[in-house]
């Protein structure tokens, strides 16, 4: 059972959608030129063959026409006007069945929906072929404490926030911060929900109207979440928010030199793979990695650098070098 298979090629998906759309509503049909444009991919010879067959341009002696579409008033319509039934593959069903067993799935779908899906999957004739089972996998999580506790309150708040984001509405939240301060009924414009797989936690990235800058609030610290009105000029808010985020992005990257020893390149690349990095070979058996980061990621970067040990050396900027050096000196003195 191959995951990478021809039936998932994007051209198959495109034509399925095209035929089904035309069968339902032939005003959605395209001309031959529009069809060529929509079908992605450069014009390589095998792709050209596909297009010729699809548009029935062959003379049927040496090469076949597909005979799937026909031309009427310049538009390409399905010859056989019957829709393509859409069915999930075993890989998709196995995966869905697996994630439905994750308690976080209850944050997204109602119990009745979940039951319908589970029933359908358990009655599937191919169920015994589903290879994704928890007992086959060991997740080396960082701590058993990192498990999202899904209370009723959390679930309701989560759904309210998702609705607000989708409907472009503001929210009223009560946030109890880490230090114990309580901010009651803050009006915020929600941006997105951030999920951390390492710690199994959600944070709301938003714009409180009283503070007027991007803020992140842990979902478990929120209570009394209520939907507000639609945000006036939502696109304006989005571009303004993203501009503010850009301002928090440091212009000067952290530049580190990595020694080509003990798989240091590999460990380093993995640790920083979620950052915007730029690497090049320095030549003397070392690699330079420039890490572009948001101001609030600084502590994490420093921790990762200490984590990687002496295979990695910070080259610039000076304030980061100084901070790393002071950490190292303090640690050296503590253990001697």
């Amino acid at each position, binding site marked *: *059972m191959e995951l*990478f298979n021809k*039936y998932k*090629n994007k051209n198959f*998906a495109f034509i399925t*959608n095209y035929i089904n*759309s035309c069968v339902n*509503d032939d005003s959605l049909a395209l001309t031959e030129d529009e069809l060529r444009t929509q079908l992605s991919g450069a014009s390589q010879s*095998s*792709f*050209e*063959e*596909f297009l010729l067959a699809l548009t*029935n341009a062959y003379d*049927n*002696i*040496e090469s*076949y026409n597909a*005979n*799937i579409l026909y*031309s009427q008033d310049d538009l390409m319509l399905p*010859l*056989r006007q019957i*829709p*393509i*039934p859409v*069915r*999930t593959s*075993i890989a998709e069903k196995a*995966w869905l069945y697996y994630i439905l067993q994750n308690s976080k799935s209850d944050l*997204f779908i109602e119990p009745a929906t979940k039951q319908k*899906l589970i029933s*359908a999957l358990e009655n599937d*004739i*191919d169920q015994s072929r589903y*290879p994704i089972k928890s*007992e086959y*996998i*060991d997740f*080396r999580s*960082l*701590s058993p*404490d990192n498990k999202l506790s899904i209370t009723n309150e959390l679930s309701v708040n989560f759904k309210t926030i998702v609705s607000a984001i989708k409907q472009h509405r503001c929210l009223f939240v009560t946030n109890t911060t880490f230090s114990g301060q309580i901010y009651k009924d803050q009006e915020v414009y929600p941006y997105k*929900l*951030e999920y951390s797989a*390492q710690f199994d936690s959600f944070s709301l990235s938003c714009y409180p109207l009283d503070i007027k800058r991007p803020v992140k609030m842990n979902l478990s610290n929120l209570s009394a979440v209520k939907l507000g009105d639609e945000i006036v000029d939502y696109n304006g808010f989005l571009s303004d928010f993203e501009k503010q985020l850009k301002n928090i992005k440091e212009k000067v990257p952290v530049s580190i030199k990595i020694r080509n020893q003990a798989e240091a390149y590999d460990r380093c690349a*993995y640790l920083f*793979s*979620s*950052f*915007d990095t730029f690497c*090049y*070979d320095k030549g003397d058996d070392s690699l330079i990695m420039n890490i572009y980061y948001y101001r609030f990621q600084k502590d994490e970067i420093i921790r990762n650098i200490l*984590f990687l*040990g002496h295979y990695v050396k910070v080259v610039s900027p000076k304030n980061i*070098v100084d901070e*790393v050096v002071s950490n*190292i000196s*303090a640690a*050296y003195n503590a253990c001697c």
Partner: protein
Amino acid sequence: MAKTKNTHAFQNDIKHYDKIRDILRYLYMYGSSSKEELVEKKLSKSISSFYDTKQRIENYIDGEYLQEHKSKEKGSGKKYRFMYDPFICPVNYLADTYQNCSYVIDDFIFYFCLMQVFTDPDYRQKPYEYVADECGKEYYEIDDCIDYMHEFTINDLITTIQIVFDTNQALLEALNGIPGNDEQSELLFTLPKVRARIQELSDIGIIVNTSKDTYRLSDDIFADLEADELKDVQLLTQFFYNCSFLTIPGYYLSATIVEYAQSNFIEETDSFFNKQENPVFFYKNHRLQNVIDDDITWAVLDAIHNTNAIQYKYRTKCGFLKECTVLPIKLVIDYQYGRQYFFCYDYAYKVFNMQRLSSVSEITIARKIKRPQKFEFISEKISKDTDLHRIYNQVYSQHFEHVWNIAMSEKASTVLIHFTFPEGEYQKQLNRIKSTRHHGLITELGNGHVDFSVTVQSELELVPWIRGYGAYAVVDAGTNPDLAAKLKTDWEEAMKQYGIIQ
């Protein structure tokens, strides 16, 4: 005018994902390599095949995420880097590369002829009803449809599909004047060709094999869902495929849901493609590179499920490819670095190993390994009713008890670390220990002091974690002299590196 087939021309689509796996991973992780560097690192067989691969990657990946830049070093040409900024692009653009498996035009014709044969028995459609208006002939009576749940044999199918193809040809001639070819349907839809494709489709699960010689279309698992419920399932799918250890089946499912919604809940969409839209979530430490190995992960899971042995090529640390034949027992997902492994029994060396998924290629089932050799490491007697997966779990637990993260070792020992935090930092740092403690025990002693103890197989594996706490962490030199000495040496090396000491 028909074009002749040019088999030496560049092929955009590929047969095996192995062809782009290594370069894609290298470009994503390190970026910025010239073609000469890649050939030198054996990531490309030659300069010309490098150009082919480069062109493929440019076609597969949305240009927004693939940045070209000129290098300052003279003599080197364009270099690439993949963009990653979780705020600007919360999409998994590497997943798009899985939509480019090659096919021949016959596969395409077969698939669409086959799928347009199936009809809903409650709303039995007349596929050629419109023709009566267009060319005065009556085609709508042709009985060439198969109900969704109807079981058919290969021979039944061949007859039906030939009728469909011939009818389409005749119609194309009547409507657009394009001449048909009477022999074509018999050349296209021969018994071996149809059987092979039906078996492929049953293997994938679009068609199901109901008994020895009969098949039918697989069930519609969304049949009882309303449009709104399906929208919720879509958001669920998009969330989970972005943060699950296995992305591609979820990515495929997301596309299938779009196709299904377009077909059943007529929605107006601007684009027919499922462009990854995920305005609601973004992901912290979202590491995309594991997607590149998803088909290997899937193959390993499938082997574990079916208790199969596998053979593959493994790239060792020195860079050369080793042939391996193993029995995979457990998939292991590391959250520290984001790497993926599998625990297995190696038949050649008769030992248990941890293999990195990203080093594996050309994986197939090892049919040459049969019982009793297959389970030679199992001491208990194996019968038809033995629950092999229970034994797999037992073997794994025995070998993996007390492991901190991944590293296994001969003996276990207990590590004791003393933490001291200044008042302003105490709560934050304590929380950090709690969320990264693995199976260790925390004891708060008051006055900013915290003791941490854990029994592990490999003490050295804790070193990076301890280093992350800088001066706050001191290993107890009495209980763990070797570990304490190692930390001391590490800090010394770091001091020398910055020129603080000689």
